[in-house]
C-alpha cells in the first residue's frame, strides 16, 4: 500500500502501526512527534495507531531555529 509520508509517496509492504513505521525508518520515537491524517498523536498511541492505504503521516523533530 502507498501512504503519503512527509509529503512524499511511500510504499509499505503491509499493514503497519505508527510504531512499526518508526522502527522501520530507524527513528527514535522519543525524539519525534507524529501526525496521522492531520491528528497529532500522543506518543503512547504510536503502537495502537494502524496505518491504512492512502493515509497521510507527518513525522517531525526539532531542528536549529531562532
Amino acid at each position: 500500500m502507498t501512504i503519503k509520508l512527509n509529503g512524499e509517496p511511500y510504499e509499505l509492504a503491509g499493514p503497519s502501526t505508527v510504531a512499526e513505521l518508526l522502527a522501520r525508518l530507524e527513528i527514535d520515537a522519543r525524539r519525534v512527534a507524529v501526525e496521522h491524517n492531520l491528528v497529532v498523536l500522543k506518543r503512547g498511541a504510536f503502537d495502537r495507531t494502524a496505518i491504512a492505504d492512502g493515509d497521510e503521516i507527518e513525522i517531525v523533530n526539532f531542528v536549529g531555529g531562532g
Partner: protein
Amino acid sequence: MDTFTIAGRTFRSRLIVGTGKYSSPAVMVRAHEASGADMITVAVRRVNLDRTKESLLDFIDTSKYFILPNTAGCYTADDAVRTARLGREVGLSNWVKLEVIGDERTLFPDNEALIEATRVLVKDGFVVLPYTNDDPIACRKLEDAGAAAVMPLGAPIGSGLGIQNVNNIRIIREFARVPVIVDAGVGTASDASLAMELGADGVLMNTAIAGAQDPVAMAESMKYAVRAGRLAHLAGRIPRRMYATASSPVEGLVGR
C-alpha cells in the same frame, strides 16, 4: 539574585538564545554555554528520512536548558497551531514561541492571525510567547488573548539593525502586565543592553550570535550586555540635559 519569571517558571538568565545557523553543533554548544542562557529556541520540521543528519537534541542537555519550540515559517494561524501542537508532542515543553509571518521579505508578523492563534493555543493549555510587532496596541491585544509574555521585534529577524523604535519598546513595557522580551533585530552587544535599559525583561536572539565571526565570544558578550543593561535599568539613569553640569567643585579653584 535578579531572576525573571514567565508563567510561574523562573529563569536565572534574561537572555534567550536560538539554535539556528551555527557552523557546527560543537560551536553551538560552546556558544550556549558562554551565553549563560537557560532557555533556548528550536524549530519544528519534518525529519530527514534518510537519517544522514544527527538530531539537534543530541547536542542539547535538556536537563540544563529549557526548550522553547517555535512556529517559524508559518504563514497562517492554522499552520502555526498545527506546528505548535506537534512541537508539544515531542514532549519537552508546552511552551511555544508563536510566529505567524505576514510577509516573506520582512518576516513581519501577521498580527491578526497571531492574536487568533494565541487565543486557540492558550485555550489548548499552551504557554504562548508571541513574536510581535513593536506595536503597544498589538501587544495589549495579545496579552488580552492570554499570552504569557509579549515579544516585540527590535528590527526585522536576522537584520542586525538594533532597536528601531526605542520609544515603542518603552511604551510596550509601560503598558504590559506580562514580561516583555525583545525578540529579533539585535546586531551587537549594545543593542541588547539598550533593550534591557529600556526596561525589557529579556532579550531573545539567534543570528547576532550564530552569525558573528566568533559566535562563542559574541555569546559571552551578550551575557554581559544583558546583565549590564538590566543593572543600568534597575540603577535608574540620570536625566538627559542639554548643557553641562560640572562633576568637580566649582569653588576653591586655584588663582581665582
